[in-house]
Each structure stands twice: as C-alpha cells, then as structure tokens.
C-alpha cells in the first residue's frame, strides 16, 4: 500500500477556495486516489476518486499531475460547514481501505 502524507491541519476563510495536497511518492501503476470527508461525530463520507488528470463532481475537484506522486483536493468557495477532516487514500481497486490521520480543515468566518 502506498504511504500518503498530508498536512495535519489547515485553516481557511469562508468563500475561499481550499486546496489540500497529498503526497504519495510510491504510488503504483494500479493504484487509485480516493478522498474521504469526516464531520465531527459522523462516519467518513466518500468524496471523490481519480486515477490521473482531473476529476470533478458536485462537491470537489481532484487534480493529479502526470507523475501521480501527489494529488490535490480542491474545495471551491468553502463555508463553515466544510470544517471536517479530509483523508487521502491510495489503493488498488480490490485492496483494503486504510485511513491515515487526515487533514483537519478549519473554516473561519
């Protein structure tokens, strides 16, 4: 399993775009990059997954450079309700899902 490194915490302000970068230098050819979001007192929630280039859904965008050694989760125009922990996971499609410590994002008014 590829090891991931992401910031322990980040602060931002309402209305701003937030980018959380995850490093995964030893990502394998068959690995996919997945991001989860966890609000306090709730279980994690799947946000987005990608393999290369850019993926966008109604919640976020995921940018993956050509070498795939990192990825950036982009949250457009955040609000207070985006305060949560964001987990970056790298895994093969049939492999177990292992969470790291994640990035604690705190949105300020």
């Amino acid at each position: 399993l590829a090891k991931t490194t992401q910031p322990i915490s980040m602060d931002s302000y309402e209305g701003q775009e937030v980018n959380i970068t995850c490093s995964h230098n030893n990502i394998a050819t068959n690995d996919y990059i997945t991001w989860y979001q966890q609000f306090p007192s709730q279980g994690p929630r799947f946000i987005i997954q990608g393999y290369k280039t850019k993926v966008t859904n109604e919640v976020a965008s995921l940018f993956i450079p050509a070498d795939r050694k990192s990825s950036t989760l982009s949250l457009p125009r955040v609000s207070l309700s985006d305060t949560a922990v964001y987990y970056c996971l790298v895994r093969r499609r049939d492999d177990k899902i292992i969470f790291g410590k994640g990035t604690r994002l705190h949105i300020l008014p």
Partner: protein
Amino acid sequence: EAGVVQSPRYKIIEKKQPVAFWCNPISGHNTLYWYLQNLGQGPELLIRYENEEAVDDSQLPKDRFSAERLKGVDSTLKIQPAELGDSAVYLCASSSPSGSQTGELFFGEGSRLTVL
C-alpha cells in the same frame, strides 16, 4: 434510502464488562466492515465481511473481540471483557460490489464506547 444504521450510539460500561454493537448495512450491500476510531486518528479496519464470510479479520484482537454476520445482512461486534483501552468509536460501513472496487464505502454514525 436508509443509510447504515448502528446502535447503540453511546455506551458506557465498566472495565471487564461485555458490550455488543449492532450494524444494519444498506440494503443490497454485500460487503460489511467494522472499523475502530480513536480520538484524533483515522479509522482502523477490524474486520471485513463478504456476505456472511469474514474475508479479512487480521486486525481483530481475537482474544476479546468477536464478530458475526450470520445471514449476510446485519452484523454484531462484541467485546468481552472490555478494557480501558477499548474506549473509542466503532464504525460500521458497507459497500456494493462495485463500491468495494472503487473504495466507495458508506459509513454509519458510529457507536461511541467509554470504558470506566
């Protein structure tokens, strides 16, 4: 559509007592997971079921933890006897066959255990 349902939401017990957590996955999801989450940490996988078969229980402390999913639907996680270090949130998740491939799990709200 109902999500993953867990009960109880909160449980306080004294050490050495038994405790059980129940999980009802999303209808049609054949894969069920139990995770443990300590404060400030990410969830840690305890056991994964494919239907009624435990396909990965390598991280389950089998001396005191047990789990079952008898009919391939609901599942129960039991701790007996509980220790102080077992205080944590126990999360249940489920996924469809395609979700297991993509890594899209649906989690319940968790059961918070406090051992005194």
